[in-house]
């Protein structure tokens, strides 16, 4: 090292000798590992997000469409008194219309099932449509009405697995008496079908029990559910129930419709399938963009349940939360970090605030119940009280993040400002705060995200509730998106499952929108010095 002859310089250098080279290689390996770990971490987090989102999205998509049936409704003057709508029997009108489609259906149970194809909310919608003038009274009108949740699910293919249609070479002969039918087939293909459907064979008779797929024979203007199939010479014979004796003629061809999911394993009977299929065959059903879901309030009926009430409730609650938590949180952070003397008291306060972040959210609910509801007499179930409680819950997050951000602003900036005679308040508000803004906004984003998804504290103040009306203000009863999700996730009706996922998507959309504003702001404030 010391006696370098100039020309040799470099080759024996401490930093280029073999040991150093080896070390360097190791260091680079470490560097690459580190970088890949970083990239991996981001990718991993992204992957989690993608997995979660894709599950939600695939589940949610069906909920954004909805099936309607168009029925001729008798809105003549005898039925509808525009002066006195509340006296009108809208259910009757709707029921007559759907029953009019299938005049052959008899029997109380059956008629009840038939009426059940149309949503129980249809009469209310009809009334609203008349009130708003969307539908005019006076005559028989074609009006699209929402289908019931199971019919809707069926049309979306979520109730029963469709096994397709098998066309028959020749039309079978059907002899029907009292709903029971005897059928004679001219070939044996039906026997194969019955076997595939899982029929139980006994003495050459294939019995299609409730555990087997349903075979629905369509022929001769009738639809017959096959019960027993038996090979006979030159063909086959079968017995079955006539499900519909006046089916609309779609094609002349006879066919067997296979519903793979056995009748016992679905909440939607063969008869109902036949009815809905028949309506579809006549072009009466259509799938529409689900405006009910997007723009109406809660309902106990899946097909009538909407998210708008919760969206508005969340928006109002978040407004209150933001309006309280952001200024108070930032102000508290500024005071503690910039103004408060650094003594034992402020140390205690600091620990305390950190500690508040670890208080379970439901405890904030208890506090809110005691203070806001019982003491300040805020109305129960209102966004006002909810916003206050969530603000208290969010405060620690915002304060902690803001303090960290303020602390990261180099002291030289403060000195510079103070040195030219800015007051402390001016120094903070003109220089320190803008530089700390990115961190403050991050805290706000995270805190608000947490508040947006919180249910437990709201339980205590009555926001975990069934509220149909879309809230009109900060004091009217309201619920919020996560509560709506939580309640829907707990309802037994399967149709609510898609609603749940869809509501989650809406919540995420809400979140993204909320964050987007903060993110844009944050980007504007970011700089490195």
């Amino acid at each position, binding site marked *: 090292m010391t006696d370098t002859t100039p020309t040799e310089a470099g080759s024996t250098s401490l930093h280029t000798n073999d040991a150093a080279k080896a070390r360097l290689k190791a260091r680079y390996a470490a560097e690459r590992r580190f970088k890949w770990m970083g990239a991996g971490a981001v990718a991993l987090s992204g992957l989690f997000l993608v997995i979660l989102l894709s599950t939600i999205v695939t589940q949610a998509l069906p909920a954004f469409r909805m099936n309607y049936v168009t029925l001729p409704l008798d809105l003549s003057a005898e039925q509808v008194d525009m002066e006195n709508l509340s006296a009108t029997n809208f259910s009757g009108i709707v029921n007559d219309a759907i029953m009019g489609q299938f005049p052959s259906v008899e029997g109380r149970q059956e008629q009840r099932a038939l009426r059940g194809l149309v949503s129980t909310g249809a009469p209310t919608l009809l009334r609203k449509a008349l009130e708003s003038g969307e539908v005019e009274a006076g005559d028989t009108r074609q009006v699209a009405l929402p289908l019931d949740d199971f019919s809707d699910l069926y049309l979306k293919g979520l109730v029963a697995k469709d096994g397709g249609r098998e066309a028959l070479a020749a039309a079978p002969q059907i002899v029907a008496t009292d709903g029971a039918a005897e059928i004679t087939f001219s070939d044996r293909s039906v026997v194969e079908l019955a076997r595939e459907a899982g029929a139980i064979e006994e003495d050459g008779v294939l019995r299609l029990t409730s555990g087997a797929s349903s075979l629905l024979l369509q022929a001769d203007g009738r639809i017959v559910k096959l019960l027993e199939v038996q090979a006979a010479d030159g063909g086959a014979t079968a017995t079955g129930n006539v499900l519909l004796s006046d089916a609309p003629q779609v094609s002349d061809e006879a066919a067997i419709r296979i519903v793979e999911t056995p009748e016992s394993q679905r909440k939607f009977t063969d008869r109902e399938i036949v009815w809905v299929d028949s309506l579809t065959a006549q072009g009466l059903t259509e799938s529409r963009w689900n405006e009910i879901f997007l723009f109406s309030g809660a309902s106990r009926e899946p097909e009538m349940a909407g998210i708008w009430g919760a969206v508005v409730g969340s928006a109002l609650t978040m407004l209150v939360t933001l309006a309280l938590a952001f200024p108070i949180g930032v102000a508290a952070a500024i005071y503690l970090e910039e103004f408060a003397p*650094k003594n034992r008291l402020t140390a205690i306060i600091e620990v305390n605030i950190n500690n508040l972040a670890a208080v379970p959210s439901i405890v904030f609910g208890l506090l809110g119940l005691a203070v806001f509801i019982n003491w300040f007499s805020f109305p129960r179930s209102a966004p006002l009280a909810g916003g206050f409680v969530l603000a208290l819950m969010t405060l620690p997050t915002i304060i902690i993040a803001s303090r960290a951000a303020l602390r990261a602003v180099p*002291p*030289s*900036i*403060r*000195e*510079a*400002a*103070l*040195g*030219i*005679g*800015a*007051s402390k308040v*001016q120094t903070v508000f*003109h*220089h320190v705060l803008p*530089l700390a803004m990115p961190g403050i906004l991050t805290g706000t984003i995270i805190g608000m995200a947490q508040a947006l998804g919180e249910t437990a504290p709201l339980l205590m103040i009555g926001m975990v509730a069934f509220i149909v009306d879309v809230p009109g203000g900060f004091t009217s009863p309201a619920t919020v998106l996560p509560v709506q999700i939580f309640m829907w996730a707990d309802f037994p009706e399967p149709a609510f499952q898609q609603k749940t996922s869809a509501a989650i998507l809406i919540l995420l959309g809400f979140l993204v929108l909320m964050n987007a504003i903060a993110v844009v702001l944050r980007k504007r404030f970011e*700089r490195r*010095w």
Partner: protein
Amino acid sequence: MNMLTEAQVENAIQPDSENYTVKMRGSNVCVFYGEKQALFDVNLDVRQNQVTALIGPSGCGKSTFLRCLNRMNDTIDICRVRGDITLDGEDIYDPAIDVVELRARVGMVFQKPNPFPKSIYENIAYGPRIHGLSNSKSELDGIVETSLQKAGLFNEVKDRLHEPGTGLSGGQQQRLCIARAIAVSPEVILMDEPCSALDPIATAKVEELIDELRENYTIVIVTHSMQQAARVSQRTAMFHLGNLVEEGPTDKMFTNPEDKRTQDYITGRFG
């Protein structure tokens, strides 16, 4: 004004006395950083319309004393100041005093350049704005321009006034900070090695500026350059290990110092 006259009278007995006014006076100033004492009973007068240079080896407490003069030490939690410091006879550590006003009257340029992460224009305009020194945009523009010109920076940055001040070179940044301090027209300007990052030309310019400013302002400057102290200051104070070793007219200090340590330091024989 009474106090001032008293001060004058008091100082009149000093050998080099002429007709001068004491702008700032520190009496028995002790400064502690936590447990550690950084200044020991410093007594120093800053005369109006003169340049006082503080010299001494690194770490001897020059910056510390300087920061006492406009109470910048208040911002350091562990720092405590004892003794009296007056500005125009008023105790600046009096609780009734308005620190902000004090700092507007006693401006400061720091050792490390610390521009705001804002545009060059905003860096300069900030002070005048908060002190209400301009009534209109054009007036403000004027202040910005003259300040930059006085600091010898205007020509270099006139095309990029609205670009960030942090994008300047080190020397440019320091001149920006000087310009920023000048912009609020303080009575006293404290400069903590203002030229340490400057090239000779810029230095000369700043020295010239200091000389100019002296007519209206009082200046205290910390410097490591004896030459600079000799060139710009009328009086020099020599610090060592937190003590004020010697204080007097600059020419006397450099030609005929009383203290052995001063002599050693000036001639580079120190340490």
